[in-house]
């Protein structure tokens, strides 16, 4: 890559969220014309997801306190469109030998790269609960998408359950939009928040916003309970959710009624693409997540691969912007461009602040790993394949599978359409608990292409040519 003329340097950015947009902007400013690929119809990524063209709600309605940031990202991206090669509605489904394999409208596009910047973001992190496979249960992020990009609520009386800042944010967004919010049930205890407060102070405005959401919910009479443990989402197979049974911190059992549940336990990184480039991963004890290894500036262990945003570390949208910029600078530096060391130092310092804040969030809203061992055997763990905790435990106890990939081979947990996105982390906790080993030893599911379902009818000129060449040769 070193010594290449910048206008011939082929940099591919996957993801047009805050990280990808800032990375693209930084490269363009240096004279590179990157290719930006995003699966979404419009750029913006997860938090700054845009509504369809014919919707009329104002940015303030959509993004609240983050409206100007959202606008900033959207305007920046719109201003870049002529200086980049932008491929919207295009899914990267595999990466191999310096090429990105992407599909759009059932057509293959294969793109070579000198450097690859992956900004693939995050999805909700889930812990199963009995009944979560019923119609009417949605991920917290999903319930937000319903509101943000489609102006609908997932039910008339929505129960919000889980933990993390998104829990309060989405519940208050629902409230504000006029949806029925039955309760907010947080598995983490309030005291954890108090203890984490000093770290959370590294982003005081975010902390204050969080408090405001809780106050608004309480002011509206929405019960907000902390330190709970969900026991079962109730309902019946045909009509779906009818309520939730949970236990309070004091051990009392309660049942509340509702026609929808939005649940989530903060976020998990989307790392399949990094995995396909054969990056090394390391287990993070604090969050119980496997992260691809990166250096301070986002370089992965695979040459010419860079990772930014929540896909590299769950640090939030504002950190994603910083890391997008930082990673692009690292990429430029590796290509032999002289970049300002002061700028790099300043960005690294910003990142350190966000890391501290994220550590605070992690402590205030911990992943309830201990729930995994308590899930009743009949709880579905893998929604795709409808495999229960009991079946997974059986592969550990009766078949000796003490590792995630082995347990997947025997039980099918992680083998479904979602590629383990929603079951793998809880699955590993269940395996570890059943085997009596630390969860790090249960390992992580290896990524397998395609990153998302790939249509068999995919058209590819190269594949067609390869086949007909062989046929011609043998005639």
């Amino acid at each position: 890559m070193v010594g290449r003329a910048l206008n011939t340097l082929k940099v591919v950015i996957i993801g047009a969220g805050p990280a990808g947009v800032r990375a693209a902007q930084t490269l363009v400013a240096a004279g590179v014309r990157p290719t930006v690929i995003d699966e979404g119809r419009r750029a913006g990524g997860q938090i700054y997801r845009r509504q369809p063209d014919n919707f009329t709600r104002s940015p303030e309605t959509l993004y609240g306190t983050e409206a100007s940031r959202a606008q900033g990202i959207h305007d920046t991206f719109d201003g870049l469109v002529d200086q980049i090669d932008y491929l919207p509605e295009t899914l990267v489904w595999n990466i191999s030998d310096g090429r990105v394999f992407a599909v759009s409208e059932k057509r293959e596009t294969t793109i070579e790269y000198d450097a690859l910047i992956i900004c693939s973001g995050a999805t909700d992190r889930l812990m199963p609960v009995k009944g979560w496979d019923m119609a009417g249960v949605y991920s917290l992020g999903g319930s937000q998408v319903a509101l943000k990009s489609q102006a609908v609520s997932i039910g008339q009386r929505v129960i919000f359950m889980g933990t993390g800042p998104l829990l309060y944010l989405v519940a208050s967004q629902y409230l504000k939009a006029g949806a029925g919010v039955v309760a907010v049930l947080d598995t983490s205890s309030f005291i954890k928040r108090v203890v984490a407060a000093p770290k959370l102070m590294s982003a005081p405005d975010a902390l204050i916003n969080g408090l405001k959401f809780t106050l608004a919910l309480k002011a509206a009479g929405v019960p907000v309970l902390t330190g709970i443990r969900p026991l079962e989402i109730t309902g019946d197979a045909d009509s779906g959710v009818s309520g939730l049974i949970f236990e309070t911190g004091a051990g009392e059992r309660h049942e509340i009624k509702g026609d929808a549940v939005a649940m989530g336990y903060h976020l998990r990184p989307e790392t399949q693409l990094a995995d396909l480039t054969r990056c090394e991963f390391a287990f993070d004890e604090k969050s119980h997540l496997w992260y691809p290894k990166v250096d301070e500036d986002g370089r992965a262990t695979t040459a010419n691969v860079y990772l930014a945003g929540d896909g590299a570390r769950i640090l939030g949208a504002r950190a994603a912007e910083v890391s997008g910029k930082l990673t692009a600078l690292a990429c430029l530096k590796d290509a032999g461009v002289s970049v300002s060391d002061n700028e790099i130092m300043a960005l690294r310092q910003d990142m350190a602040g966000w890391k501290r804040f994220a550590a605070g969030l992690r402590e205030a809203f911990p992943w309830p790993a201990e729930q995994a061992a308590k899930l009743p055997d009949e709880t579905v763990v893998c929604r795709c394949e409808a495999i229960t905790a009991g079946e997974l435990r059986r592969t550990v106890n009766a078949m000796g599978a003490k590792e995630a990939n082995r347990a997947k081979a025997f039980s099918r947990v992680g083998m479904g359409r979602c590629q383990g996105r929603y079951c793998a982390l809880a699955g590993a906790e269940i395996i570890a608990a059943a085997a009596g080993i630390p969860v790090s030893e249960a390992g992580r599911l290896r990524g397998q292409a395609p990153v998302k379902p790939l249509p068999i009818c995919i058209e590819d000129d190269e594949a067609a040519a390869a086949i007909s060449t062989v046929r011609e040769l043998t005639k």
Partner: protein
Amino acid sequence: MAPRFYRLAETGRKVVNLTLDGQPVAALEGDTLMVALLSAHGHLRRSEFGDGPRAGFCLMGACQDCWVWTEDGERLRSCSTAVSDGLNIRTNPPEVSWSDVL
């Protein structure tokens, strides 16, 4: 069956007509197929493994729980497909086996 999703705003859009299991459904332009279907109906499909109806989960193209069938045996991921006039959707695989139609 009661609808699952409720519209909170943006209701002044143009109507788009589709069919779900033979019944007419009036959607709005700009709806995803999922929102269109669940604003009229309680679920999208049935789990292949017998544990009841499903109505999607993530709305962001990650969980793959929201795939529906078209009348002519195609598969659509409803949360990331925009509605269009005349779509003919089924919550169950088509009666003529999907594999019979060449």
